[in-house]
Protein backbone atom coordinates (compact mmCIF):
# COMPACT_ATOMS: atom_id res chain seq x y z
CA UNK A 1 0.00 0.00 0.00
CA UNK A 2 2.52 2.59 1.12
CA UNK A 3 4.79 1.14 -1.55
CA UNK A 4 2.55 2.68 -4.20
CA UNK A 5 3.43 6.08 -2.88
CA UNK A 6 7.19 5.65 -3.18
CA UNK A 7 7.24 6.92 -6.79
CA UNK A 8 5.31 9.96 -5.65
CA UNK A 9 7.94 10.67 -3.04
CA UNK A 10 10.61 10.32 -5.72
CA UNK A 11 8.84 12.68 -8.09
CA UNK A 12 8.26 15.13 -5.25
CA UNK A 13 11.98 15.19 -4.50
CA UNK A 14 12.70 15.70 -8.19
CA UNK A 15 10.12 18.48 -8.63
CA UNK A 16 11.12 20.25 -5.44
CA UNK A 17 14.77 19.94 -6.36
CA UNK A 18 14.07 21.40 -9.79
CA UNK A 19 12.10 24.28 -8.32
CA UNK A 20 14.65 25.18 -5.68
CA UNK A 21 17.61 24.84 -8.01
CA UNK A 22 15.84 27.24 -10.36
CA UNK A 23 15.27 29.66 -7.51
CA UNK A 24 18.91 29.51 -6.51
CA UNK A 25 20.19 29.86 -10.07
CA UNK A 26 18.05 32.87 -10.72
CA UNK A 27 19.50 34.38 -7.57
CA UNK A 28 23.10 33.81 -8.68
CA UNK A 29 23.01 34.38 -12.43
CA UNK A 30 21.95 37.57 -14.10
CA UNK A 31 22.85 41.20 -13.62
CA UNK A 32 21.86 43.13 -10.55
CA UNK A 33 21.59 46.86 -10.83
CA UNK A 34 19.17 48.35 -8.33
CA UNK A 35 17.87 51.77 -7.52
CA UNK A 36 14.88 52.93 -5.51
CA UNK A 37 12.68 53.80 -8.48
CA UNK A 38 13.34 50.51 -10.20
CA UNK A 39 12.35 48.56 -7.11
CA UNK A 40 9.03 50.34 -6.83
CA UNK A 41 5.99 48.14 -7.40
CA UNK A 42 4.64 48.58 -10.91
CA UNK A 43 1.78 51.01 -11.14
CA UNK A 44 1.67 52.07 -14.78
CA UNK A 45 4.84 54.07 -14.43
CA UNK A 46 3.76 56.50 -11.74
CA UNK A 47 4.54 56.52 -8.04
CA UNK A 48 2.47 54.18 -5.93
CA UNK A 49 -0.82 55.69 -4.83
CA UNK A 50 -1.73 54.67 -1.32
CA UNK A 51 -0.98 51.33 0.25
CA UNK A 52 -1.25 47.95 -1.41
CA UNK A 53 -3.18 46.41 1.46
CA UNK A 54 -6.43 47.82 0.16
CA UNK A 55 -9.91 46.73 1.14
CA UNK A 56 -11.42 44.50 -1.45
CA UNK A 57 -14.92 43.34 -2.20
CA UNK A 58 -16.76 41.31 0.42
CA UNK A 59 -17.81 38.97 -2.41
CA UNK A 60 -14.44 37.29 -2.35
CA UNK A 61 -15.12 36.27 1.25
CA UNK A 62 -18.58 35.07 0.32
CA UNK A 63 -17.15 32.95 -2.48
CA UNK A 64 -14.62 31.49 -0.08
CA UNK A 65 -17.35 30.59 2.44
CA UNK A 66 -19.59 29.07 -0.21
CA UNK A 67 -16.66 27.14 -1.60
CA UNK A 68 -16.01 25.51 1.77
CA UNK A 69 -19.63 24.40 2.05
CA UNK A 70 -19.76 22.88 -1.40
CA UNK A 71 -16.29 21.42 -1.20
CA UNK A 72 -17.31 19.55 1.92
CA UNK A 73 -20.36 18.37 0.02
CA UNK A 74 -18.01 16.94 -2.60
CA UNK A 75 -15.96 15.32 0.13
CA UNK A 76 -19.10 13.46 1.18
CA UNK A 77 -20.06 12.62 -2.40
CA UNK A 78 -16.81 10.88 -3.34
CA UNK A 79 -16.97 7.97 -0.89
CA UNK A 80 -20.67 7.69 -1.62
CA UNK A 81 -19.97 7.39 -5.35
CA UNK A 82 -17.29 4.76 -4.77
CA UNK A 83 -19.55 2.41 -2.80
CA UNK A 84 -22.71 3.25 -4.76
CA UNK A 85 -22.81 0.09 -6.88
CA UNK A 86 -22.06 -2.21 -3.94
CA UNK A 87 -24.94 -0.78 -1.96
CA UNK A 88 -27.39 -0.93 -4.87
CA UNK A 89 -27.82 -4.65 -4.25
CA UNK A 90 -29.52 -3.72 -0.97
CA UNK A 91 -32.09 -1.57 -2.72
CA UNK A 92 -32.40 2.04 -3.72
CA UNK A 93 -31.78 3.36 -0.22
CA UNK A 94 -28.31 4.67 -1.04
CA UNK A 95 -29.70 6.72 -3.88
CA UNK A 96 -32.48 8.35 -1.92
CA UNK A 97 -30.24 8.97 1.04
CA UNK A 98 -28.04 11.12 -1.15
CA UNK A 99 -31.08 12.72 -2.75
CA UNK A 100 -32.08 14.01 0.70
CA UNK A 101 -28.56 15.24 1.34
CA UNK A 102 -28.34 16.93 -2.04
CA UNK A 103 -31.84 18.39 -1.67
CA UNK A 104 -30.89 20.18 1.55
CA UNK A 105 -27.74 21.51 -0.05
CA UNK A 106 -29.59 22.46 -3.21
CA UNK A 107 -32.02 24.35 -1.00
CA UNK A 108 -29.12 26.22 0.55
CA UNK A 109 -27.80 26.93 -2.92
CA UNK A 110 -31.13 28.36 -4.08
CA UNK A 111 -31.35 30.40 -0.88
CA UNK A 112 -27.92 31.88 -1.49
CA UNK A 113 -28.80 32.53 -5.11
CA UNK A 114 -32.10 34.21 -4.32
CA UNK A 115 -30.49 36.42 -1.71
CA UNK A 116 -28.02 37.72 -4.23
CA UNK A 117 -24.81 36.24 -2.87
CA UNK A 118 -23.83 35.10 -6.35
CA UNK A 119 -24.28 38.46 -8.05
CA UNK A 120 -21.22 40.31 -9.27
CA UNK A 121 -22.44 43.70 -10.25
Amino acid at each position, binding site marked *: MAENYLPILVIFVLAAGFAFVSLIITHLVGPRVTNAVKMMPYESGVDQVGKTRIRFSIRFFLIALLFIIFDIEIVFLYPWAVVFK*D*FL*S*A*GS*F*IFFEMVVFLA*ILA*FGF*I*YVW*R*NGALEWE
Partner: protein
Amino acid sequence: MDISQFFTSADLFGIAPEIILTVTALSVLTLEMLHVSRPGIILMVAALGLFLAGALAINTSGDEQILFGGMLVLNRFSVFFDFLYITIGLLTLIFSQGYLEKRGSASRGEYPALILFAIIGMMLMTRANDLVIVFLGLELLSLSLYILVGFLRHDQLSNESGLKYLLLGAFATGFFLFGAALTYGAAGTTNYNGIVTAITNNTILSDTYLFLGIGLLLIGFAFKVALVPFHMWSPDVYQGAPTTVTGFLCTAPKAAGFGALIILFNRAFVDIHYQWQDIFWILSAMTMTIGNISALIQHNVKRMLAFSSVSHAGFLIMGILVLNETSISAVLFYLVVYSVVNLGAFAIVSAAEQEERGLNLKDYRGLAAQHPWLSAAMTIFMLSLAGFPPTAGFVAKFGLFSAAVSQGYIGLVIIAVLNTLISIYYYLRLVVNMYMQKEESTLILSYKMLAIVFVGLIAIMMIILGITPGYLLEIVTEAASTVA
Protein backbone atom coordinates in the same frame (compact mmCIF):
# COMPACT_ATOMS: atom_id res chain seq x y z
CA MET B 1 -24.78 -4.94 2.04
CA ASP B 2 -27.44 -4.61 4.72
CA ILE B 3 -28.66 -1.11 5.42
CA SER B 4 -30.37 -2.01 8.69
CA GLN B 5 -27.04 -2.40 10.44
CA PHE B 6 -26.69 1.36 10.16
CA PHE B 7 -30.17 2.47 11.00
CA THR B 8 -33.79 1.43 10.92
CA SER B 9 -37.08 3.20 10.43
CA ALA B 10 -37.53 3.30 14.23
CA ASP B 11 -34.55 5.62 14.36
CA LEU B 12 -36.19 7.94 11.87
CA PHE B 13 -39.45 7.97 13.84
CA GLY B 14 -37.45 8.73 16.95
CA ILE B 15 -36.02 11.91 15.48
CA ALA B 16 -39.31 12.91 13.86
CA PRO B 17 -39.52 16.15 15.89
CA GLU B 18 -36.08 17.18 14.68
CA ILE B 19 -37.01 16.32 11.11
CA ILE B 20 -40.23 18.32 11.36
CA LEU B 21 -38.37 21.29 12.80
CA THR B 22 -35.76 21.11 10.04
CA VAL B 23 -38.46 21.03 7.38
CA THR B 24 -40.21 23.94 9.09
CA ALA B 25 -37.04 25.97 9.29
CA LEU B 26 -36.38 25.35 5.61
CA SER B 27 -39.96 26.31 4.72
CA VAL B 28 -39.57 29.49 6.73
CA LEU B 29 -36.43 30.27 4.78
CA THR B 30 -38.30 29.52 1.56
CA LEU B 31 -41.00 32.00 2.50
CA GLU B 32 -38.29 34.53 3.26
CA MET B 33 -36.70 33.73 -0.07
CA LEU B 34 -39.97 34.30 -1.90
CA HIS B 35 -40.24 37.70 -0.20
CA VAL B 36 -43.55 36.96 1.47
CA SER B 37 -44.49 40.41 2.58
CA ARG B 38 -46.42 39.66 5.75
CA PRO B 39 -44.08 38.68 8.59
CA GLY B 40 -47.01 37.19 10.49
CA ILE B 41 -47.23 34.32 8.03
CA ILE B 42 -43.62 33.35 8.57
CA LEU B 43 -44.04 33.39 12.33
CA MET B 44 -47.22 31.36 12.03
CA VAL B 45 -45.51 28.68 9.95
CA ALA B 46 -42.71 28.52 12.50
CA ALA B 47 -45.20 28.23 15.37
CA LEU B 48 -47.10 25.52 13.52
CA GLY B 49 -43.88 23.56 13.08
CA LEU B 50 -43.16 23.87 16.79
CA PHE B 51 -46.66 22.62 17.67
CA LEU B 52 -46.27 19.69 15.31
CA ALA B 53 -42.85 18.84 16.72
CA GLY B 54 -44.32 19.00 20.22
CA ALA B 55 -47.13 16.66 19.23
CA LEU B 56 -44.64 14.21 17.76
CA ALA B 57 -42.42 14.47 20.81
CA ILE B 58 -45.32 13.51 23.07
CA ASN B 59 -46.06 10.63 20.75
CA THR B 60 -42.61 9.18 21.21
CA SER B 61 -42.70 9.40 24.98
CA GLY B 62 -43.15 6.25 26.93
CA ASP B 63 -40.50 3.62 27.28
CA GLU B 64 -36.87 4.38 26.86
CA GLN B 65 -35.71 4.03 23.26
CA ILE B 66 -32.14 3.75 22.07
CA LEU B 67 -31.65 5.13 18.59
CA PHE B 68 -28.89 5.05 15.98
CA GLY B 69 -26.94 2.30 17.67
CA GLY B 70 -26.68 4.03 21.04
CA MET B 71 -26.07 7.54 19.77
CA LEU B 72 -29.39 8.94 21.02
CA VAL B 73 -31.55 7.95 23.96
CA LEU B 74 -35.20 8.92 24.11
CA ASN B 75 -36.90 8.88 27.51
CA ARG B 76 -39.18 11.00 29.67
CA PHE B 77 -36.26 13.18 30.61
CA SER B 78 -35.44 14.12 27.01
CA VAL B 79 -39.11 14.58 26.15
CA PHE B 80 -39.45 16.92 29.11
CA PHE B 81 -36.61 19.02 27.74
CA ASP B 82 -38.04 18.87 24.21
CA PHE B 83 -41.19 20.45 25.57
CA LEU B 84 -39.27 23.04 27.51
CA TYR B 85 -37.38 24.12 24.37
CA ILE B 86 -40.52 24.18 22.26
CA THR B 87 -42.31 26.29 24.86
CA ILE B 88 -39.41 28.70 25.09
CA GLY B 89 -39.23 28.87 21.31
CA LEU B 90 -42.95 29.60 20.97
CA LEU B 91 -42.88 32.28 23.64
CA THR B 92 -39.81 33.87 22.05
CA LEU B 93 -41.50 33.97 18.67
CA ILE B 94 -44.63 35.53 20.17
CA PHE B 95 -42.66 38.17 22.05
CA SER B 96 -40.32 38.87 19.14
CA GLN B 97 -42.78 40.09 16.56
CA GLY B 98 -43.49 43.53 17.94
CA TYR B 99 -39.92 44.03 19.03
CA LEU B 100 -38.40 43.20 15.67
CA GLU B 101 -40.83 45.51 13.92
CA LYS B 102 -39.76 48.25 16.28
CA ARG B 103 -36.11 47.65 15.52
CA GLY B 104 -36.78 47.54 11.81
CA SER B 105 -35.94 43.97 10.90
CA ALA B 106 -39.33 42.31 11.10
CA SER B 107 -39.37 40.83 7.65
CA ARG B 108 -36.25 38.81 8.13
CA GLY B 109 -37.42 35.22 7.98
CA GLU B 110 -34.02 34.05 9.17
CA TYR B 111 -34.97 34.95 12.73
CA PRO B 112 -37.55 32.21 13.33
CA ALA B 113 -35.51 29.81 11.25
CA LEU B 114 -32.45 30.33 13.43
CA ILE B 115 -34.52 29.85 16.57
CA LEU B 116 -35.81 26.58 15.13
CA PHE B 117 -32.28 25.44 14.31
CA ALA B 118 -31.18 26.32 17.83
CA ILE B 119 -34.04 24.22 19.21
CA ILE B 120 -32.99 21.26 17.07
CA GLY B 121 -29.47 21.59 18.43
CA MET B 122 -30.69 21.68 22.01
CA MET B 123 -32.93 18.66 21.46
CA LEU B 124 -29.90 16.75 20.24
CA MET B 125 -27.95 17.82 23.32
CA THR B 126 -30.41 16.37 25.79
CA ARG B 127 -31.09 13.28 23.70
CA ALA B 128 -27.42 12.55 23.20
CA ASN B 129 -25.82 9.44 24.53
CA ASP B 130 -22.51 10.20 22.90
CA LEU B 131 -20.08 13.07 23.23
CA VAL B 132 -20.03 13.52 19.46
CA ILE B 133 -23.78 14.11 19.37
CA VAL B 134 -23.56 16.56 22.26
CA PHE B 135 -20.93 18.42 20.30
CA LEU B 136 -23.09 18.38 17.17
CA GLY B 137 -26.06 19.79 19.08
CA LEU B 138 -23.92 22.33 20.90
CA GLU B 139 -22.50 23.61 17.64
CA LEU B 140 -25.87 23.82 15.91
CA LEU B 141 -27.14 25.77 18.91
CA SER B 142 -24.10 28.02 19.16
CA LEU B 143 -23.89 28.85 15.47
CA SER B 144 -27.54 29.88 15.44
CA LEU B 145 -27.05 31.96 18.56
CA TYR B 146 -23.98 33.78 17.18
CA ILE B 147 -26.10 35.05 14.30
CA LEU B 148 -29.15 35.78 16.45
CA VAL B 149 -27.10 37.85 18.88
CA GLY B 150 -25.80 40.01 16.04
CA PHE B 151 -29.16 40.04 14.32
CA LEU B 152 -29.66 43.81 14.34
CA ARG B 153 -27.17 44.44 11.60
CA HIS B 154 -27.28 48.21 11.83
CA ASP B 155 -26.90 48.31 15.58
CA GLN B 156 -23.34 48.64 16.77
CA LEU B 157 -23.90 47.05 20.17
CA SER B 158 -25.58 44.07 18.59
CA ASN B 159 -22.71 43.58 16.19
CA GLU B 160 -20.16 43.92 18.94
CA SER B 161 -21.86 41.40 21.15
CA GLY B 162 -22.27 39.00 18.23
CA LEU B 163 -18.55 39.11 17.56
CA LYS B 164 -17.67 38.77 21.25
CA TYR B 165 -19.95 35.80 21.60
CA LEU B 166 -18.52 34.19 18.47
CA LEU B 167 -14.90 34.56 19.58
CA LEU B 168 -15.43 33.36 23.13
CA GLY B 169 -17.89 30.70 22.06
CA ALA B 170 -15.42 29.31 19.55
CA PHE B 171 -12.86 29.22 22.33
CA ALA B 172 -15.26 27.30 24.55
CA THR B 173 -15.96 24.89 21.73
CA GLY B 174 -12.26 24.24 21.56
CA PHE B 175 -12.22 23.35 25.25
CA PHE B 176 -15.16 21.04 24.79
CA LEU B 177 -13.57 19.26 21.84
CA PHE B 178 -10.26 18.82 23.62
CA GLY B 179 -12.16 17.43 26.56
CA ALA B 180 -14.03 15.00 24.33
CA ALA B 181 -10.79 13.98 22.64
CA LEU B 182 -9.00 13.35 25.94
CA THR B 183 -11.98 11.42 27.28
CA TYR B 184 -11.94 9.35 24.13
CA GLY B 185 -8.24 8.79 24.56
CA ALA B 186 -8.74 7.61 28.12
CA ALA B 187 -11.87 5.52 27.70
CA GLY B 188 -11.52 4.42 24.08
CA THR B 189 -15.05 5.50 23.24
CA THR B 190 -17.21 8.58 23.20
CA ASN B 191 -20.36 6.63 23.97
CA TYR B 192 -21.69 7.20 27.48
CA ASN B 193 -22.44 3.54 28.09
CA GLY B 194 -18.99 2.64 26.81
CA ILE B 195 -17.39 5.18 29.14
CA VAL B 196 -19.29 3.77 32.13
CA THR B 197 -18.19 0.26 31.23
CA ALA B 198 -14.61 1.40 30.87
CA ILE B 199 -14.72 3.09 34.27
CA THR B 200 -16.39 0.23 36.12
CA ASN B 201 -14.17 -2.40 34.54
CA ASN B 202 -11.21 -0.18 35.25
CA THR B 203 -9.98 -0.31 31.66
CA ILE B 204 -9.25 3.41 31.66
CA LEU B 205 -5.99 4.01 29.86
CA SER B 206 -4.92 6.93 31.97
CA ASP B 207 -6.70 8.50 34.91
CA THR B 208 -4.91 11.78 34.24
CA TYR B 209 -6.32 11.96 30.73
CA LEU B 210 -9.80 11.20 31.96
CA PHE B 211 -9.50 13.81 34.68
CA LEU B 212 -8.25 16.41 32.21
CA GLY B 213 -10.91 15.40 29.73
CA ILE B 214 -13.76 15.80 32.20
CA GLY B 215 -12.28 19.08 33.38
CA LEU B 216 -12.14 20.49 29.86
CA LEU B 217 -15.64 19.26 29.08
CA LEU B 218 -16.81 21.00 32.22
CA ILE B 219 -15.09 24.22 31.16
CA GLY B 220 -16.82 23.98 27.78
CA PHE B 221 -20.19 23.64 29.47
CA ALA B 222 -19.34 26.34 32.00
CA PHE B 223 -18.72 28.76 29.14
CA LYS B 224 -22.03 27.93 27.53
CA VAL B 225 -24.15 28.23 30.69
CA ALA B 226 -22.04 31.14 32.02
CA LEU B 227 -20.59 29.84 35.26
CA VAL B 228 -18.09 32.01 37.13
CA PRO B 229 -15.22 32.36 36.16
CA PHE B 230 -16.33 31.63 32.59
CA HIS B 231 -19.18 34.13 32.61
CA MET B 232 -17.24 37.14 31.36
CA TRP B 233 -18.96 37.19 28.00
CA SER B 234 -22.49 37.11 29.33
CA PRO B 235 -23.17 40.72 30.47
CA ASP B 236 -21.92 42.30 27.24
CA VAL B 237 -23.61 39.77 25.04
CA TYR B 238 -26.88 39.90 26.97
CA GLN B 239 -26.90 43.66 26.82
CA GLY B 240 -26.02 43.98 23.15
CA ALA B 241 -28.24 41.25 21.76
CA PRO B 242 -31.79 42.07 20.66
CA THR B 243 -33.80 41.89 23.87
CA THR B 244 -35.99 39.00 22.78
CA VAL B 245 -32.87 37.08 21.79
CA THR B 246 -31.44 37.82 25.22
CA GLY B 247 -34.54 36.24 26.69
CA PHE B 248 -34.00 33.16 24.54
CA LEU B 249 -30.26 33.16 25.21
CA CYS B 250 -30.51 33.15 28.99
CA THR B 251 -33.15 30.43 29.14
CA ALA B 252 -33.06 27.73 26.50
CA PRO B 253 -29.29 27.21 26.12
CA LYS B 254 -28.97 27.20 29.88
CA ALA B 255 -31.62 24.51 30.14
CA ALA B 256 -29.91 22.51 27.39
CA GLY B 257 -26.52 22.91 29.03
CA PHE B 258 -27.75 21.73 32.40
CA GLY B 259 -29.75 18.92 30.83
CA ALA B 260 -26.69 17.65 28.95
CA LEU B 261 -24.53 18.09 32.06
CA ILE B 262 -26.95 16.04 34.16
CA ILE B 263 -26.98 13.24 31.61
CA LEU B 264 -23.21 13.36 31.23
CA PHE B 265 -22.50 13.09 34.94
CA ASN B 266 -25.39 10.84 35.73
CA ARG B 267 -24.72 8.37 32.95
CA ALA B 268 -21.15 8.53 31.73
CA PHE B 269 -19.23 9.68 34.79
CA VAL B 270 -21.64 8.41 37.42
CA ASP B 271 -18.97 6.36 39.19
CA ILE B 272 -16.51 9.21 39.47
CA HIS B 273 -18.99 11.96 40.16
CA TYR B 274 -17.93 12.04 43.80
CA GLN B 275 -14.42 13.14 42.74
CA TRP B 276 -15.88 16.27 41.27
CA GLN B 277 -18.10 17.35 44.12
CA ASP B 278 -15.57 19.81 45.53
CA ILE B 279 -15.27 21.49 42.17
CA PHE B 280 -19.04 21.74 41.79
CA TRP B 281 -19.23 23.14 45.31
CA ILE B 282 -16.71 25.87 44.50
CA LEU B 283 -18.31 26.60 41.11
CA SER B 284 -21.71 26.89 42.69
CA ALA B 285 -20.61 29.17 45.54
CA MET B 286 -18.53 31.40 43.27
CA THR B 287 -21.14 31.65 40.55
CA MET B 288 -24.03 32.63 42.79
CA THR B 289 -21.99 35.04 44.90
CA ILE B 290 -20.14 36.85 42.13
CA GLY B 291 -23.22 36.90 39.90
CA ASN B 292 -25.30 38.46 42.66
CA ILE B 293 -22.75 41.00 43.78
CA SER B 294 -22.19 42.11 40.18
CA ALA B 295 -25.93 42.40 39.66
CA LEU B 296 -26.17 44.69 42.68
CA ILE B 297 -24.19 47.46 41.05
CA GLN B 298 -25.82 47.43 37.63
CA HIS B 299 -27.98 50.27 36.40
CA ASN B 300 -28.93 48.84 33.04
CA VAL B 301 -31.86 46.48 33.40
CA LYS B 302 -30.65 44.03 30.79
CA ARG B 303 -27.24 43.82 32.44
CA MET B 304 -28.86 43.36 35.81
CA LEU B 305 -30.93 40.48 34.49
CA ALA B 306 -27.81 39.06 32.82
CA PHE B 307 -25.94 38.88 36.11
CA SER B 308 -29.03 37.57 37.84
CA SER B 309 -29.10 34.72 35.31
CA VAL B 310 -25.45 34.00 36.15
CA SER B 311 -26.35 33.69 39.81
CA HIS B 312 -29.26 31.40 38.96
CA ALA B 313 -26.81 29.11 37.18
CA GLY B 314 -24.96 28.95 40.49
CA PHE B 315 -28.11 27.72 42.24
CA LEU B 316 -28.68 25.17 39.51
CA ILE B 317 -25.17 23.74 39.89
CA MET B 318 -26.17 22.73 43.41
CA GLY B 319 -28.49 20.21 41.82
CA ILE B 320 -25.66 18.71 39.83
CA LEU B 321 -23.50 18.64 42.94
CA VAL B 322 -26.06 16.51 44.74
CA LEU B 323 -27.23 14.57 41.71
CA ASN B 324 -29.93 12.29 43.03
CA GLU B 325 -33.53 11.93 41.96
CA THR B 326 -34.77 14.69 44.26
CA SER B 327 -32.16 17.16 43.16
CA ILE B 328 -32.61 16.42 39.46
CA SER B 329 -36.34 16.93 39.72
CA ALA B 330 -35.65 20.15 41.63
CA VAL B 331 -33.34 21.32 38.85
CA LEU B 332 -36.00 20.56 36.24
CA PHE B 333 -38.63 22.46 38.20
CA TYR B 334 -36.25 25.34 38.70
CA LEU B 335 -35.42 25.43 34.99
CA VAL B 336 -39.08 25.63 34.00
CA VAL B 337 -39.86 28.44 36.43
CA TYR B 338 -36.65 30.32 35.75
CA SER B 339 -37.05 30.09 31.95
CA VAL B 340 -40.66 31.15 31.79
CA VAL B 341 -40.21 34.00 34.26
CA ASN B 342 -37.17 35.32 32.47
CA LEU B 343 -38.94 35.21 29.13
CA GLY B 344 -41.82 37.18 30.61
CA ALA B 345 -39.49 39.73 32.18
CA PHE B 346 -37.58 40.19 28.95
CA ALA B 347 -40.84 40.54 27.05
CA ILE B 348 -41.73 43.52 29.22
CA VAL B 349 -38.20 44.95 28.93
CA SER B 350 -38.39 44.62 25.14
CA ALA B 351 -41.78 46.34 25.09
CA ALA B 352 -40.45 49.22 27.17
CA GLU B 353 -37.20 49.53 25.22
CA GLN B 354 -36.92 52.72 23.21
CA GLU B 355 -35.28 53.19 19.85
CA GLU B 356 -31.56 52.37 19.90
CA ARG B 357 -31.31 52.63 23.66
CA GLY B 358 -31.24 50.15 26.48
CA LEU B 359 -33.13 51.16 29.61
CA ASN B 360 -31.68 51.94 33.00
CA LEU B 361 -33.47 51.25 36.25
CA LYS B 362 -34.53 54.83 36.70
CA ASP B 363 -36.20 54.89 33.29
CA TYR B 364 -38.83 52.63 34.81
CA ARG B 365 -39.86 55.24 37.33
CA GLY B 366 -43.56 55.70 37.50
CA LEU B 367 -44.34 52.89 35.10
CA ALA B 368 -46.96 51.55 37.49
CA ALA B 369 -49.09 54.65 37.08
CA GLN B 370 -49.31 54.26 33.32
CA HIS B 371 -49.31 50.52 32.93
CA PRO B 372 -50.58 48.99 36.16
CA TRP B 373 -51.12 45.52 34.76
CA LEU B 374 -47.72 45.23 33.12
CA SER B 375 -46.08 46.54 36.26
CA ALA B 376 -47.95 44.00 38.32
CA ALA B 377 -46.76 41.24 36.03
CA MET B 378 -43.19 42.52 36.24
CA THR B 379 -43.46 42.57 40.01
CA ILE B 380 -44.58 38.97 40.06
CA PHE B 381 -41.63 38.03 37.84
CA MET B 382 -39.16 39.84 40.05
CA LEU B 383 -40.61 38.28 43.20
CA SER B 384 -40.49 34.91 41.54
CA LEU B 385 -36.85 35.36 40.53
CA ALA B 386 -36.04 36.43 44.06
CA GLY B 387 -37.86 33.40 45.43
CA PHE B 388 -40.65 34.98 47.45
CA PRO B 389 -43.58 32.84 48.51
CA PRO B 390 -46.29 32.45 47.13
CA THR B 391 -44.65 32.51 43.71
CA ALA B 392 -43.29 29.49 41.87
CA GLY B 393 -39.76 30.79 42.40
CA PHE B 394 -40.09 29.98 46.09
CA VAL B 395 -41.07 26.38 45.43
CA ALA B 396 -38.17 26.01 43.00
CA LYS B 397 -35.57 27.38 45.39
CA PHE B 398 -37.03 25.46 48.29
CA GLY B 399 -36.79 22.20 46.33
CA LEU B 400 -33.16 22.78 45.43
CA PHE B 401 -32.11 23.86 48.92
CA SER B 402 -33.86 20.99 50.65
CA ALA B 403 -32.28 18.51 48.23
CA ALA B 404 -28.88 19.96 49.11
CA VAL B 405 -29.56 20.03 52.85
CA SER B 406 -30.69 16.42 52.86
CA GLN B 407 -27.27 15.46 51.49
CA GLY B 408 -25.49 17.53 54.10
CA TYR B 409 -24.35 20.52 52.11
CA ILE B 410 -25.41 22.90 54.83
CA GLY B 411 -22.57 25.35 54.25
CA LEU B 412 -23.43 25.78 50.60
CA VAL B 413 -27.11 26.18 51.37
CA ILE B 414 -26.29 28.94 53.87
CA ILE B 415 -24.32 30.73 51.16
CA ALA B 416 -27.25 30.24 48.79
CA VAL B 417 -29.73 31.65 51.28
CA LEU B 418 -27.51 34.65 51.91
CA ASN B 419 -27.30 35.17 48.18
CA THR B 420 -31.04 35.00 47.86
CA LEU B 421 -31.28 37.75 50.45
CA ILE B 422 -28.81 39.90 48.51
CA SER B 423 -30.69 39.31 45.28
CA ILE B 424 -33.91 40.61 46.82
CA TYR B 425 -32.30 44.04 46.92
CA TYR B 426 -31.78 44.43 43.21
CA TYR B 427 -34.95 42.64 42.17
CA LEU B 428 -37.01 44.87 44.40
CA ARG B 429 -35.11 47.97 43.30
CA LEU B 430 -36.85 47.65 39.94
CA VAL B 431 -40.21 47.24 41.66
CA VAL B 432 -39.52 50.23 43.88
CA ASN B 433 -38.62 52.29 40.82
CA MET B 434 -41.86 51.33 39.13
CA TYR B 435 -44.16 51.98 42.05
CA MET B 436 -42.63 54.44 44.46
CA GLN B 437 -40.77 56.98 42.36
CA LYS B 438 -42.02 59.93 40.41
CA GLU B 439 -41.66 59.57 36.67
CA GLU B 440 -39.11 61.71 34.87
CA SER B 441 -40.04 61.02 31.29
CA THR B 442 -42.92 59.09 29.90
CA LEU B 443 -42.11 55.66 28.52
CA ILE B 444 -43.97 54.77 25.37
CA LEU B 445 -44.52 51.06 25.38
CA SER B 446 -45.05 49.20 22.16
CA TYR B 447 -46.34 45.68 22.16
CA LYS B 448 -48.62 43.28 20.42
CA MET B 449 -51.83 42.22 22.13
CA LEU B 450 -50.92 38.53 21.89
CA ALA B 451 -47.63 39.11 23.68
CA ILE B 452 -49.35 40.92 26.53
CA VAL B 453 -51.87 38.11 26.90
CA PHE B 454 -49.03 35.64 27.25
CA VAL B 455 -47.18 37.82 29.73
CA GLY B 456 -50.34 37.87 31.83
CA LEU B 457 -50.75 34.11 31.50
CA ILE B 458 -47.18 33.55 32.68
CA ALA B 459 -47.70 35.82 35.67
CA ILE B 460 -50.90 34.01 36.67
CA MET B 461 -49.22 30.65 36.16
CA MET B 462 -46.37 31.62 38.46
CA ILE B 463 -48.83 32.41 41.24
CA ILE B 464 -50.79 29.22 40.67
CA LEU B 465 -47.62 27.14 40.57
CA GLY B 466 -46.50 28.82 43.75
CA ILE B 467 -49.66 27.78 45.56
CA THR B 468 -50.26 24.35 44.03
CA PRO B 469 -47.07 23.10 42.44
CA GLY B 470 -48.26 19.50 42.52
CA TYR B 471 -48.95 19.01 38.83
CA LEU B 472 -45.56 20.23 37.59
CA LEU B 473 -43.81 18.44 40.46
CA GLU B 474 -45.35 15.18 39.30
CA ILE B 475 -44.08 15.70 35.79
CA VAL B 476 -40.54 16.60 36.82
CA THR B 477 -40.35 13.73 39.29
CA GLU B 478 -41.38 11.32 36.60
CA ALA B 479 -38.85 12.80 34.18
CA ALA B 480 -36.11 12.72 36.79
CA SER B 481 -36.88 9.13 37.72
CA THR B 482 -35.98 7.95 34.22
CA VAL B 483 -32.42 9.15 34.51
CA ALA B 484 -31.65 8.83 38.21
